């Protein structure tokens, strides 16, 4: 690879990262705040690559770009051709296990009058670790996608520690309705089913469904 081709690869990566950072597409891969560092790095890469496309040096005696640079075309092509979607039911089924204990062990009360919109991860933690049973007798609304296993079906959401590569599953077992097709996004309202066990609990918590509505994938697919 010569210097000009290397500049071309750098420009392509810069363009791909710019596109990701100024559209919502980055939300499939990274946390929302990473948008800004990504935008800055895209601009730096474009400033680095673009001039090199046009500056041809006559004396390129020690012009020796790394062979491994060719590999950098792979992510560009992956984004251009496949544009991988956010992680869904395939990933969720592979890591379908109860969430680890939370860092905090005090739980705020949930208002009793309204439908409480909470995250699936919060539902799991309250169900499995809150000895004060703050979920008891509360109407809860959850948003996620459907995933099945041998014991039934779940509403699930992937949760990232850092980026999608380290995402793990948050899931609540659904009771009282037919399973939608795998990966279908749904909004559900229901109440927690207390399993009468000692804390901490190691099962997946269960929700008794009152209503279920099919929806499109939300803008921010991760929790």
């Amino acid at each position, binding site marked *: 690879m010569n210097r000009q*081709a290397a500049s071309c690869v750098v420009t392509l990566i810069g363009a791909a990262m710019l596109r990701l950072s100024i559209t919502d597409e980055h939300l499939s891969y990274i946390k929302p705040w990473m948008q800004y560092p990504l935008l800055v790095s895209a601009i730096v890469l474009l400033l680095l690559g673009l001039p090199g496309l046009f500056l041809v040096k006559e004396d390129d005696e020690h012009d020796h770009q790394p062979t491994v640079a060719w590999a950098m075309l792979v992510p560009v092509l992956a984004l251009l051709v496949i544009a991988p979607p956010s992680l869904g039911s395939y990933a969720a089924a592979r890591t379908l296990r109860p969430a680890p204990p939370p860092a905090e062990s005090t739980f705020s009360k949930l208002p009793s009058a309204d439908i409480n919109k909470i995250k699936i991860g919060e539902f799991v933690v309250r169900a499995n670790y809150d000895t004060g049973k703050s979920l008891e007798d509360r109407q809860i609304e959850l948003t996620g996608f459907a995933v099945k296993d041998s014991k039934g079906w779940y509403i699930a959401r992937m949760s990232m520690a850092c980026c999608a590569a380290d995402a793990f599953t948050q899931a609540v077992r659904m009771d009282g309705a037919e399973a939608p097709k795998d990966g279908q996004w749904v909004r559900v309202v229901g109440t927690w089913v207390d399993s009468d066990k000692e804390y901490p609990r190691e099962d997946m918590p269960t929700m008794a469904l009152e209503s279920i509505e099919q929806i499109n994938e939300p803008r921010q697919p991760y929790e």
Partner: protein
Amino acid sequence: MVLIRVRLPRVSVETTSDEVAQEKPPADKAGWASGASLWIVVGIVGACLLLRGQISGRLDSPAFLDFATRFVSVMVQATPFLVFGVLISAAISAFVPASALQRLLPENKALAVPVAGAAGVILPGCECASVPISGSLIRRGIAPAAALTFLLAAPAINPVVLVSTAVAFPNRPDMVIGRLVASFAVAVIMGWLWLRFGKAEWLTMGRRTPHDHDGENKVATFRDAMQHDFLHAGGFLVIGAAIAAAFSTFVPKDIVDTLADNWILAVLALVLLAFLVAICSEADAFVAASFVGFSDTAKLAFMVVGPAVDVKLASMQAGVFGSKFAMRFAPVTLVVATLSAVIVGWVLL
């Protein structure tokens, strides 16, 4: 060892691995491939754009898309850190004279080792750049023990690496501190081991002198250095990210669980991966974090071993310092780095 002191030119980034590790291909052949390479890049991208519908239609299995998402997300997450890292290390190569470090070091060699390690903590440098930099430091008359400590410390524990580790492991300052302590220990221990057991005749230096960039435009040097380092480190990151993503997606859950549940197997598996995958230190924390289910100690071992020794670094060391050196230094580093990570992980995590 008698060192002939000549005024050597500034360290050049052009002397990184590929040149060091391989013979240059014959000029005419290289010239042809080199000249056509821009059109090959344009051709590949154009063909993929034209055939986009057909290609993406065939690659739609859920397992493959899961793999692709994980692969792309490691690349996207790591890119800003990689760009920032190569920006700073290229700036140092182009604008900071290498003699600056020499002035910092005390005369006493045993004392110079930890000071060189501390200099490595402050100065961001990519591991690919640190091998030739250390080589030129030794040629310049810096004690090999100190130069080798710098070689191990600079890429492993600089500010960019520590920030990326903190981002990869949110709310886990112990991972960042563990990495700092374990990697610093490796660098200093290897420096002292060299002082005690190292022999000057193992170092067969001076096969190559760096190009002289004094006459050239500094901005051009900086640009070339940054582009080279970015593509070099990024290329290895692609390979590493692909292996990590494949590991998360395709290896059966039972095998991963077996590896992850046994702490010795978990550490050995990730150490082996770190050695084979050779990811740049600015990006390896994101790959380490993606090994969901593995113990923190195993992840720490991945991050401590990777920047200290891997296939790429071992071959670069053989090129810069000679194979007699690399055959001894690389395996010992591997053992010391693994032990250091395990001990620090056991105490701290």
